[in-house]
């Protein structure tokens, strides 16, 4: 019964979304009652979809296998957490999660956008209504999660074992919060194009939504990468898999958008470009959804997808992107271009940032779509893999990383490059020194690695240099400098921290790519193998029971250079319901480095294939992303960035002015 109510709630929300979209688009200019209706409609959709979603979650939790979805993707012995996450570990459920997050963002606009101009808010919510109706329709008509089975099966068929991991609880929701969050930027862009009001204030309203989505997308991608790293047992953290690319492209364009919106807000320039990026970011999110869900890809991510749904998704994608760019093409020429600026300026640096991020995205887009297009047109089967992406993306990132530290130092309008270079000389020298030391210690055979290390440290030190310069270290008393340092505005801190994170991630990527070592060997219990100064001894191999799987359990003792012995467990699991095996790699962390042990098949005499990696400084990759995400949160906590606050502040200031003048008048009067 609850399931049917949930189904009904979804249909009701679908109908409300359509009404919200139609009324909003027709009457946005004139009617206050419509504006109020659109607001409450957005909130009601969130309530209805939440109920709908919870009804599915409930069926999974109580193992109600009369729900077809629960039968296909759950199992009564599964731990509770995986019963819940199984809801979105499949196509239908993940679309419902997508819808839930979409209406969550619409409701957030309705609630937090109190102080937005009414017309803008109504238009934004109307566009959100179109998107909501489209995805709810997709869910109801092609991917209905509420289908029942009669008679109800006694037992479910289990969630795909590789998804039975805490990663599924974190990665998809974060990623969707990022993907779908950009729908708000998209809606703002369309609303601006329809109403024709595109100014600095618009950029200020859009920026927090961009930052929120970007933070979630950053965390979602990082989490996905770490999950793949520890769960798949291949020891890799990024595969340039089409699905990874399709979540990386919105991130790159979203990063560009976040930066161009700053230019638009501060200098009222790059307006058309910013609108374009806002549309593009969400379009790439939709493209990602299409690529993942349609089943046209050969990917490690396409779990049980259905090609017939692909067409519907393609239509959805085509219509929304097509409509968005049609409106863009019609309205963009009528926008007044912003002012010009000198190439050597903060704006100039941000344009370079956008240029390289956009071309890097284009490179990834070409590499991702080229095999699909070639297959469709000529039937040729090719694949574009890591060598292509490493080369193109790598080459395009080099100039971006070189310019990055200059950006924060350059002033708006025009700046003095020589003075800025002088201020950055310390950071450059220090980075060069580090690169040379690493080069000397490790030998010269790896040519590109020292350059990469230099770039990473250059970005990290260069971003810190901004803080040091602004707080005048060495020029005034230390105590005074520290006071200044902590008194610096949140926007300066968040810029420095985010860029520092970029540097940290680059350092991690370069070091682990250049200096990781691996050993694949066969071992018997009692034997030892050496890798990168560690001695790994195979101590235990036995069979154990697990909750819904059986375990081949292996233990190793790892002797480090300092004489300390640590213990690591590596497992192979076979899941009962699907008799599908998975590998649980054993990972030991030493500082920022990790030792990674995966076990393969055994032969008849108990000789075990063991694969061991030493991954130096690999954790820096994800620590850097935490810096970026943390910086995003910090910038959101900045009062200036909060939605609607500028207007409120203005109103207050106006009030203050009024009271001041009235006071002045009374003063005068009394005098």
């Amino acid at each position, binding site marked *: 019964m609850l399931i049917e109510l949930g189904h009904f709630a979804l249909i009701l929300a679908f109908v409300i979304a359509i009404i919200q979209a139609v009324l909003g688009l027709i009457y946005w200019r004139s009617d206050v009652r419509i504006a109020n209706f659109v607001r409450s409609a957005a909130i009601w959709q969130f309530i209805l979809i939440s109920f709908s979603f919870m009804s599915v979650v409930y069926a999974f939790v109580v193992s109600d296998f009369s729900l077809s979805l629960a039968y296909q993707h759950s199992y009564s012995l599964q731990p509770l957490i995986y019963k819940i996450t199984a809801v979105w570990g499949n196509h239908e459920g993940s679309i419902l999660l997508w819808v839930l997050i979409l209406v969550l963002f619409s409701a957030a606009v309705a609630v937090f956008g109190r102080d937005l101009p009414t017309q803008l808010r109504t238009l934004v919510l109307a566009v959100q209504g179109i998107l909501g109706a489209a995805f709810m329709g997709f869910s109801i008509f092609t991917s209905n999660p509420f289908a029942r089975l009669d008679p109800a099966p006694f037992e479910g068929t289990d969630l*795909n074992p*590789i*998804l039975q991991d805490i990663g599924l609880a974190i990665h998809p929701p974060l990623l969707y919060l990022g993907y779908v969050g950009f729908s708000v930027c998209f809606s703002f862009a369309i609303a601006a194009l329809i109403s024709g009001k595109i100014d600095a204030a618009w950029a200020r309203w859009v920026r927090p939504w961009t930052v929120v989505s970007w933070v979630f997308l950053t965390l979602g991608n990082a989490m996905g990468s770490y999950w793949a790293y520890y769960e*798949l*047992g291949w020891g890799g953290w990024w595969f340039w898999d089409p699905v990874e690319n399709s979540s990386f492209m919105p991130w790159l364009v979203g990063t560009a958008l976040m930066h161009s919106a700053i230019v638009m807000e501060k200098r009222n320039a790059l307006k058309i470009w910013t609108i374009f990026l806002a549309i593009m970011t969400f379009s790439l999110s939709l493209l990602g959804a299409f690529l993942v869900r349609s089943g*046209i*890809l*050969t990917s*490690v*991510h*396409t*779990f*049980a997808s259905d090609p017939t749904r692909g067409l519907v998704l393609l239509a959805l994608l085509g219509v929304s992107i097509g409509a968005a760019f049609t409106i863009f093409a019609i309205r963009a020429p009528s926008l007044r271009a912003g002012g*010009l600026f*000198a*190439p050597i300026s903060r704006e100039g640096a941000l*344009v370079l940032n956008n*240029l*390289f991020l956009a*071309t890097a995205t*284009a*490179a990834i887009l*070409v*590499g991702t779509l*080229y*095999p699909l297009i070639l297959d469709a047109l000529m039937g*040729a*089967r*090719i*694949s*574009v*893999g890591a*060598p*292509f992406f490493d*080369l*193109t993306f790598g*080459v*395009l990132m080099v100039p971006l990383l070189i310019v990055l530290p200059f950006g924060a130092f350059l002033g708006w309008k025009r700046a003095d490059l020589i003075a800025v270079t002088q201020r950055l000389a310390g950071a450059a020298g220090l980075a060069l020194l580090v690169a040379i030391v690493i080069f000397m210690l490790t030998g010269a055979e790896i040519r590109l690695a020292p350059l990469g290390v230099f770039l990473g440290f250059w970005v990290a030190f260069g971003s810190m240099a901004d803080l040091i310069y602004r707080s005048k270290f060495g020029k005034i008393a230390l105590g005074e400098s520290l006071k200044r340092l902590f008194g610096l505005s949140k926007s300066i801190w968040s810029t420095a921290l985010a860029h520092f994170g970029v540097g940290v991630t680059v350092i991690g990527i370069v070091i682990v790519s250049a200096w990781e070592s691996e050993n*694949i*060997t*066969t071992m018997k219990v009692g034997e030892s193998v050496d890798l990168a100064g560690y001695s790994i001894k195979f101590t235990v191999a036995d069979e154990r029971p697990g909750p819904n799987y059986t375990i081949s359990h292996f233990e190793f003792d790892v002797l480090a250079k300092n004489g300390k012995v640590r213990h690591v467990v590596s497992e*192979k699991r076979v899941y009962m319901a*699907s008799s*599908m*095996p*998975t*590998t649980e790699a054993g990972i030991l962390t030493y500082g920022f480095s990790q030792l990674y042990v*995966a*076990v*393969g*098949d055994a*032969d008849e005499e108990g000789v075990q*294939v063991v*694969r061991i990696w030493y991954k130096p400084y690999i954790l820096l990759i994800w620590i850097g992303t935490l810096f970026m995400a943390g910086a995003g949160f910090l910038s959101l906590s900045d009062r200036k960035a909060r939605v609607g606050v500028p207007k409120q502040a203005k109103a207050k200031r106006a009030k203050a002015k009024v009271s001041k003048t009235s006071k002045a008048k009374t003063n005068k009067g009394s005098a």
Partner: protein
Amino acid sequence: MTRKQKRFSIIAGLGLVIALAAILIFTALSDKITFFYSPSELQEDPIAVGQAFRLGGLVQEDSWVKEDEYNIFYITDNALAVKVIYKQILPDLFREGQGVIAEGSLDAEGVFIATNVLAKHDENYIPKEVVDTLKERGEWKEDEQGDKY
């Protein structure tokens, strides 16, 4: 510089970067892509020794043996088969009779030295390329894997 010259120099600079990036992307594209072959296609259109490509088909029944850390098996399209050597841990879902894609190149004896064997998240999954070639060669049995690929 006048306003016009300034605008021109900026646009020219941006255009230059974009042009260079486009050249980079398309040279890399012609250089770094790998082609997909089935064993029969390999017979019809031989590939140079050492040239990287992807070989796809089904893992031949009763062909998989292990010699120390080497896995040796045959990839077949039910017409021809190619011997594959892979010195790494095979994916969990690697089984005889299942679809598989291997990345690597041929050695002088015509043995495929794999650098990577692709795994899928779903046990019923057969790589699309493999399904297509099997269908083309009339070796695909529709009921075999259901509609789930």
